[in-house]
């Protein structure tokens, strides 16, 4: 079903070293690691000072400050966490509506895993195809290469086939989110167990602005259901209105689940996407 013609691995390799994933500010989820978290913890890096309160660890008492000020001051150190990264790739047929759409989805999933690995996040890749797949570490690249968009159902239905989502620090879902499903329920489920959730919506040019043209028979990429419709201006305008409503609903569901909804137009180059629409996810290294 899918082809990897537009899967530019070299571009991903070029971009990944200069990027870092936006980590969640919520308490760590995962074992103690080497990555400084935004929260206070027990690393050697000083985070702040505060007044001692009964029950605090006396080992963190800054005795020099006590001697200078006579106040019981406590060192607050930066926490060190080792968060997990989970990348979920929608394997439904609509993701391969065009080679560029499929390639863009693969590139984004690969970039997330590469950047995460570079960041020491232990990436896990889940492909929601007709035969669900879950891989970790270096095999993510080869798994993405071999991934096929062949599921005849949407992501919401495919989640039932997937292995259970594990608690993780960061979850990135790459899909077109163009299906009829209770979006709040879906997004809530995707956010479950994740400190941060990014919904990366890959959309083809035809998804964004259908051109109409030939044919009066529209066939759903996944179900195969057909609809007789002449693609007139009025019909295209109606589609645009319904698409906007859908996007609005998706954004609302994402906001309710404290997830971030990012739209990645497939025609745009990966570099442009990273610098533009996906900037909230892929931060330049050093900013994170």
């Amino acid at each position, binding site marked *: 079903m899918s082809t990897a013609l537009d899967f530019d691995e070299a571009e991903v390799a070029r971009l990944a070293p200069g990027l870092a994933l936006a980590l969640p500010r919520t308490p760590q989820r995962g074992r103690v690691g080497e990555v400084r978290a935004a929260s206070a913890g027990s690393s050697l890096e000083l985070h702040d000072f505060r007044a001692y309160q009964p029950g605090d660890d006396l080992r963190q008492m800054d005795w020099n400050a006590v001697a200078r000020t006579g106040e019981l001051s406590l060192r607050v150190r930066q926490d060190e966490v080792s968060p997990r990264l989970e990348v979920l790739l929608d394997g439904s047929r*609509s993701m391969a*509506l065009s080679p560029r759409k499929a390639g863009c989805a693969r590139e984004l999933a690969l970039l997330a895993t590469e950047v995460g690995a570079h960041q020491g996040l232990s990436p896990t890749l889940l492909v929601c195809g007709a035969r669900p797949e879950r891989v970790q570490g270096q095999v993510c690249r080869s798994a993405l290469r071999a991934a096929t968009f062949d599921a005849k159902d949407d992501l919401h239905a495919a989640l039932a086939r997937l292995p259970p989502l594990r608690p993780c620090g960061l979850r990135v879902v790459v899909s*077109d989110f*163009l*299906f*009829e499903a209770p979006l709040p329920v879906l997004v809530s489920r995707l956010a479950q167990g994740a400190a941060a959730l990014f919904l990366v919506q890959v959309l*083809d040019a*035809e*998804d964004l602005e*259908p051109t109409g*043209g*030939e*044919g*009066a*028979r*529209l*066939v*759903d*990429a996944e*179900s195969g*259901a*057909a*609809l*007789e*419709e*002449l*693609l007139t201006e*009025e*019909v295209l305008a*109606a*589609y645009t*209105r*319904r*698409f906007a409503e*859908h996007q609005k609903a998706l954004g609302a569901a994402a906001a309710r689940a404290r997830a971030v909804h990012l739209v990645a137009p497939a025609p745009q180059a990966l570099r442009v996407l990273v610098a533009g629409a996906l900037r909230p996810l892929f931060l330049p290294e050093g900013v994170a």
Partner: protein
Amino acid sequence: MSFGFPWGLLALGALVPLVAAYFLRRKQKPVVVSALFLWRTPRPRAEAGPRFERFTREASLLLEMLAVVAAALFLADVRLGEDARMRHLVLVVDGSLSMSARGADGRPVLEKVRAEAARRVEEEKATSVTVLASGTVPRVLAGPEAEPSRALASLESFHALGADHEVAPTLLWAQELAGPGRRVHFLTDAPPAEGVAVPAAVRWTALGAARDNVALVSAWRRDEGSTATVTLRVARFGTGPEETEVRAVARPGPGATEGTERRERVRLPEEGAATLRFTFENAGDVEVSLPPDALPEDGEARLPPAPERRVRVALAEGLDAQARSALERFLAVSPGVERGPGEGALVVGPRGSDARVTVGVGGAVRTFVGPFFAEKGHPLLDDVQLGGVRWAAGAEAPPGRPLMTAGTVVLLSEAEGQVHLNVDLSRSNVQRTPAWPVLLGNLLREVRHAQEGFPRRQLSLGESLVVVTRPGARYTLEGPEGTRPLFGAGTLGLPPAAVPGRYTLERDGEPVDAVEVLPLDARESDLRGRGGGDRPAQAAGSDEDGGAAPGRARWPLLVLLAALLADFYVTRRTEVK
């Protein structure tokens, strides 16, 4: 289901391009989209239940096909149930010869009948028609319940040449075919005569006209040797003409090189008939004709040769001299008799022999001068006068059924094809009285009539066909209306021939004998009582009940509109709110 206008079904041909367009449209390249639901108008049942949308094209096709079928049914004037009930019209056409008479305008009555029948079919909006022809034997010309066009076509090829007959049996039969309470249309050339019982359901329409007519009322030919004698009787029915010319043409027979034509003017009496006689030598068929008049058919007759049948007679040994002498005296002067033994010969022998005719006595002989008791009506005793006869008979009765007795003595008996004469000619005078040749003449006549074939060579219309067949052979009768098999052996009485012409008897495919049925019937030739008129049926007919609806059925139109509306509904484009 029936169709008032079956050609309307041609509209079903529109299904072909419709289905073709459907399959052509199916070949259109489909456009694959990521989210079909964004193209569709949201519906309450969109999240569950069947998706009819995917069948839109098929549903549209089915609805359009339904619309085409409904339109075709409307055009074809479909009728179902009560509307489809057959409107059956029963026509009875007089099949008698007078129907061929020409009116003052030269049109035969039968032609007027055809036009009237077509008008009735149209008028009654008949969906099926049964046509009967009345005659001595009624027959079906079309039907039962034939298509109107076929029925009218059968009338076109029908020729009324039958004999005078009673129409009541045909009308009753027609009434049976029409069903209770339905009318029968009888088309003839004369109004019903006074006292004629016409069934109440019969509408009697007379289309004839009174005309003067001159006709042959009988024609008879007899051949003796090479001489043919033709006897004609010509009659005048009406005021004129007072005389006419009779033309007789004899075709050349065996041994003749050319035919003979005779013309004779004959004065026609006001009442009765004039008799003419022509004789021809070595004549073949003789054609007799009168000048054309209102009914030319009854002025023409074709008379084939009609030689008398010959009978072979053999006298057996043992006959006493008196008997032999008396028999030989008769046979010597009797025409058409061959002497000597041979196949089929009539053998006359002494009493006790197995001869066909036995002559002799047994026991004490007694002489009777009367009274004699004879079985009246027996053909052997036709015109046998026994006055002055002295009959000497033996006391022993001959075997068989007595035909003539005197006292207790049986004088003449018949048993299993044998005739026994209980007479002693040496003591009787019967052989010297007229009774003797008459009795023997009757005997020869019966033998002649028992020969294979037709006893008579010429028949007039309405006369029964009598034919004699032998056992063990397969016979057919070939006539102007075709061939039909004959069953039975011996003397068979067949119904009168329906039409004049030559009828040939065939045995195992070989012609045996022929008879000519002449188109002569004095009652049919008399056209003075013919006339026009329309006598409605006395009983109220129910033709209107159960008849076809006056207009086309409207339900196909409603189906057509419903299908179009439904098609519009399933193929409509709606805006999303």
